[in-house]
């Protein structure tokens, strides 16, 4: 349904006076999403997760140059097409209630999504009431303003906004941090249900455990590139291919809790070779020469020339 290949995003910034500098924030990024599938995008902050969502929705700022291809239902996503599709065929489940209008009751806001998608006002209201019932929101919730909702209720309202559309692709941006484990499980189950209805879901998160609970496949981002796309079973099954993914798995508190020292490279001076080269224990001269291409190894995609060992 969605195919992204070799996506790169570069920002042009004015440095001093008229001198400009280029910041490459996404480099050679690949991702595919099939109908009925939950794909988790996992990575540290600054690895380009949210920018990917912005690129798919066509809401990158004007100083961004995009190269590579994005296809949705077999057709290229041009800025014009993005604009026509967003909120209708591609919908975002935002991170927090900060994305809602603070001066409008949530009932009216959710109803408005239906009307923008072509429903009449009474039909949109009925669909909203059905959606709220489906997510166990009390009828009084409609009359609340966003700030009056608890964390768990706010999540259910945000999911409702996306369910009001007929969107084939849903992008959920960091839906879980700081929530109680029960609410996390509930939110993730909602995403799973939406996939079972035949929609494609992209779950953007820094939380591997949440990703493993619900996703079919996991794309691991590092410094703006996809280092690995693995099946969920590969994590516990010890079938991980990239040294960064392995390190991330080991650093979980229920595993070894041992971190890899260092930082992601800064977008101002990316290395010529592998982006993980300076922190990798497998690094060789060849890694520093050129960026590793994406290879299909043991049923998964990986950008590492040593992944077969």
């Amino acid at each position, binding site marked *: 349904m969605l195919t992204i290949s070799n996506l790169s995003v570069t920002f042009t910034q004015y440095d001093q006076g008229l001198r400009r500098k280029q910041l490459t924030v996404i480099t050679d990024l690949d991702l595919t999403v099939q109908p009925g599938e939950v794909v988790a995008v996992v990575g*540290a902050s600054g690895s380009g997760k949210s920018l990917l969502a912005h690129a798919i929705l066509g809401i990158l700022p004007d100083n961004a140059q995009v190269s590579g291809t994005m296809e949705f239902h077999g057709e290229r996503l041009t800025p014009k097409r993005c604009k026509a599709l967003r909120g209708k065929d591609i919908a975002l489940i935002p991170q927090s209630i900060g994305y809602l209008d603070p001066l409008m009751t949530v009932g009216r806001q959710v109803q408005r999504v239906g009307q923008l998608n072509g429903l009449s006002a009474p039909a949109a209201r009925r669909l909203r009431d059905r959606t709220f019932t489906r997510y166990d929101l009390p009828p009084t919730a409609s009359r609340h303003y966003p700030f009056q909702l608890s964390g768990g209720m706010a999540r259910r309202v945000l999911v409702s906004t996306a369910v009001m559309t007929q969107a084939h692709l849903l992008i959920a941006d960091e839906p879980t*941090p700081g*929530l*109680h484990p029960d609410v996390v499980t509930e939110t993730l189950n909602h995403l799973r249900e939406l996939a079972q209805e035949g929609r494609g879901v992209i779950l953007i998160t*820094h939380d591997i455990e949440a990703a493993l609970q619900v996703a079919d496949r996991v794309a691991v981002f590092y410094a703006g590139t996809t280092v690995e796309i693995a099946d969920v079973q590969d994590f516990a099954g010890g079938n991980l291919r990239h040294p960064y993914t392995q*390190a991330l798995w080991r650093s*979980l508190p229920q595993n070894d809790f*041992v971190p890899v*020292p*260092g930082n992601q490279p800064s977008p101002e001076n990316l290395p010529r070779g592998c982006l993980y080269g300076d922190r990798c224990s497998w690094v060789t001269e060849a890694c520093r020469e050129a960026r590793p291409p994406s290879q299909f190894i043991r049923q998964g995609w990986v950008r590492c020339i040593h992944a077969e060992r």
Partner: protein
Amino acid sequence: MLNGEGLWFRYGAKLPWVVRDRTLSIAPGEVIGLMAPSGHGKTTLGKLLAGYLTPTQGQITLDDQLLPSQGYCPVQLVFQNPELSVNPRWRIDQILREGYVPRPHYLKALGIHPGWMTRYPHELSGGELQRVAIARILNPNTRYLIADEMTAMLDANTQALIWQVVLDFARDHNMGLMVISHDKSLLGQLCQGQVIPC
């Protein structure tokens, strides 16, 4: 020893009690975990212990003295979201020096880039800013640290990295730690079984 004796707290005279009759203590060098569902007053308890709020009844003492009301507080609190604990109009370098000049060794261990110093808080990501908030409290004046979901918004590798630095510091300086978290396995790693339900 940091002691909370018979603590009661509510946000208004007619509102329900958020903290009811709690007594707890943290010894120097000790790591205690605190785990409970949302709405059970974990964050409020943290704020009471760090002197952000005054208990309605009961008192907080540090080595049998009340917490100082001026100057650097020996009990420091780090929240989940760093955006609200830094001055948005200060540059990073000034924020880091607010209480004490941090040792370069800790800046390096936390992965704080020298290039960040001239930036403003909104020019760093949440994870980067959280490292700054933590670097700021790693100094000998801090005797107790209350970590309220301190690493909930960070990826697993950064979380492990930050805890390694904080635990090393706690060991070297005999700092007491209270870790508030939803993450059972994280508390298991940090507290060696000393987890109290709230």
